[in-house]
């Protein structure tokens, strides 16, 4: 029964979060400086044209009216029309999201390989020094802001070493991996540190000592005993990392010239395309909240400790 109560509470939290995001994102965007009508119609448009545009886009209505209309539309998944492109926001997002998801997918893969799989392999085969070196390298890389790291990567790989085309070619895996590497740098550094600490703790635990007493090798203890218990740490890092992945696409796509959601948002901020901004914000918020809710539930089901603590409380 406790699990149902947990699901119910988590669902309420999810809905509350979405409502909060709806309010803050709308009002934050509404308060952005700049007149969208003037931005979109350009300097030579007449005052008459600007007034007509504001009327057509409903920009003259009271803020609350606009908010109610916005929420009502979001409820039926209608985010309105982009002020710049004059096309439905959902159609634009639909067109662009594929590229962003592909980028995030590769970044996700890089994070798993470098934060979990490779360290385990290295440690199991006795390469502790290599693992420490790798972790230090990721930490160093993650210290650079993503946009700077992107430019450095481009300058080095495309400019000096010439192993990568400077123009982004969607058909080439190397282009995607370079961009994904930049996007993955910070979450990988974070997840590898968390995983390393969790693994070290697990290796010092009672059951590891018992296994040692039974004569198992360090590598075997790592794989058979410690790994499963230490995995909860990177899984929770992923939940945080995902939000980072979505916002990180913003810098990485602009620097590499990928036409995904990040570029769409960048242009929307520049042009003050408030319908696209609001749409993207709400969609991102929804996706991130949904994923973190699912991960929480997964963790709850997977980790006996968490489950039990909840039962005790309940």
């Amino acid at each position: 029964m406790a699990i149902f109560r947990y699901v119910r509470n988590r669902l309420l939290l999810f809905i509350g979060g979405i409502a909060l995001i709806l309010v803050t994102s709308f009002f934050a965007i509404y308060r952005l400086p700049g007149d969208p009508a003037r931005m979109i119609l350009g300097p030579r448009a007449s005052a008459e044209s600007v007034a007509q545009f504001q009327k057509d886009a409903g920009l003259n209505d009271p803020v609350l009216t606009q908010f109610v209309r916005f929420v009502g539309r979001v409820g039926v998944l209608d985010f309105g029309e982009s002020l710049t492109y004059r096309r439905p926001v959902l159609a634009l997002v639909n067109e662009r999201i594929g590229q962003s998801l592909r980028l995030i997918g590769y970044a996700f893969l890089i994070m798993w390989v470098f934060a979990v799989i490779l360290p385990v392999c290295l440690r199991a085969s006795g390469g502790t020094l290599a693992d420490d070196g790798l972790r230090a390298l990721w930490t160093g890389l993650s210290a650079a802001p993503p946009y700077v790291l992107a430019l450095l990567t481009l300058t080095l790989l495309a400019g000096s070493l010439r192993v990568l085309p400077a123009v982004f070619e969607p058909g080439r895996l190397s282009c995607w991996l370079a961009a994904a590497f930049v996007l993955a740098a910070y979450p990988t550094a974070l997840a590898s540190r968390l995983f390393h600490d969790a693994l070290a703790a697990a290796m010092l635990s009672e059951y590891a000592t018992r296994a040692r007493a039974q004569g198992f090798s360090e590598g075997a203890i790592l794989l058979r005993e410690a790994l499963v218990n230490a995995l909860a740490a990177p899984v929770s890092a992923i939940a945080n990392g995902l939000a980072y992945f979505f916002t990180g696409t913003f810098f990485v796509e602009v620097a590499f010239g990928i036409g995904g959601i990040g570029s769409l948002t960048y242009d929307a901020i520049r042009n003050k395309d408030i319908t696209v901004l609001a749409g993207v914000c709400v969609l991102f918020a929804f996706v991130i909240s949904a994923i973190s809710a699912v991960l929480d539930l997964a963790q709850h089901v997977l980790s006996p400790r968490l489950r039990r603590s909840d039962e005790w409380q309940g």
Partner: protein
Amino acid sequence: MYLNYFASRRIFLGATLTLAALLSGCGRHQPQASTPELKILYNTEEEPAEKSAVAQVLQAQLGKAGIPVVLDPVSNAVFYERVGAGNFQCALALWYLDYDDPEGFLTDFYSKAGFRLSKYQNPAYDQAYLGGLLAPNSEKKKEGFRSASQILMQDLPWVPLYSNDELFLLSAGTDGFRSNAYQYYDYRRVARGTIRVASNIELQTLDPALVYDLASKHVATQSYEGLVAMDDHLNIVPALAKSWQFSQGNDRLTFDLRTGVKFHGQFGVFSAKDVKASFERMLRQNSPYAYIFDHVKGIEEFKSGKAPQVSGFRVDGPSRFTIELKESFPTMLNWLLAPAAFVLPAGLPAKYDFSHGSAGTGPFALESWDGTVAKFAANQSYWATSEDGGKLPLATSLSIRTMKEVNAMLTAYQQGELDLMNVPLALYGEVLDPKGELSSKYASSRLRVVPLNNLKFLAFRMGTAPWGTDSMLRKKVYDGIDRSSIVTNLFRGKARVALGVVPQMEEKH
């Protein structure tokens, strides 16, 4: 009356104080004390490298001239919001023309114009401007515009700085590329199978009716055409119209249209009804260029919804189209060069998706736009032919890529991933040697320099004290700027000093 009295008293008082300050300043050798601080607003997202460099140079030069300058860099959105609302003292701004006519510069000072950057108002100016705009012949037009330009030189709502050139790096085989002072890029004669170009400015729209920025114009002009076009010598030449004729009083403009021209895809053959439909569609779309038809008969009735059509747009058979004007207005032909007047098929669906195809008659048909790259295929049934009667365009495909990072763009060019690129100021140091010649690193490339008909200037917010009310102060700014130093040192000679609001007009004096 009272208001006038106090106003004149204040001016008198102000003048006395200024004179006193000047006199005292002279005595103590401190002329700076009398000059108020000048706050220069500029947009850090539009031609960013150029803006910040010029702003800093101005700060130094004006400082030397005794004018303390404070720089106020803001984002694109904030810049346009503040400029639109008149919430600034002085703005470092730019103005690009669309056609070869001084009117393009002078329009912004007309008290009933659309934008009015400086919020300038002067009945004498309006009279001179309208005298030129509605003049029955070119002599009277020149006369009107010249006196309008002279009034601006007295009042100085804008302090002109320079007009710059556009630079292109061309790789082997791209010599056929043509462009002109209005940045119409023509790839029809580029003899390469595929042409790959990049630009560092973002695209705003793919719908020709809504185009006002350079990047959108670049893309739209490959697929769409108007009745007339401009060649590289700035002459208006036939496009979809074979010829045109103004009536005696310049109040009717009749076009003889080309026959047998096909639209891309399934949109059939072009005829006069498409011209009418496109012009009316552009007005319904609330185009930034809707004003170009302000002088057409029946425009008010159409805009207010009283008439379903514009009575001044007349279809006289499939290959003849007439524009009836309210008054003598020879500038109408120039205004038809705007991308907003490009012709789309009458049968274009209301919700046509411009990112997955094009519905024009131009040399390249758009295949896709993915947010960064516009891909085109040659229009196999394109109407125009080369000088020797050969088929155009010569290339089979074209791609225009947005690359926001200029260094990445240059790297791509160096690696042969781009065939042609325009060179923004940020890359002058890399591409040009100190004398302004192409650097020896680019020996296999060719440099193309195209003087633009544009103006970079300081715009003052007129009407607010002290900078907007005192033309002597503005004159001090005008005199305090060393334009030739900006041209030689910053632009390596790839710009021209601008002394008047209409640069060509002042040079001709």
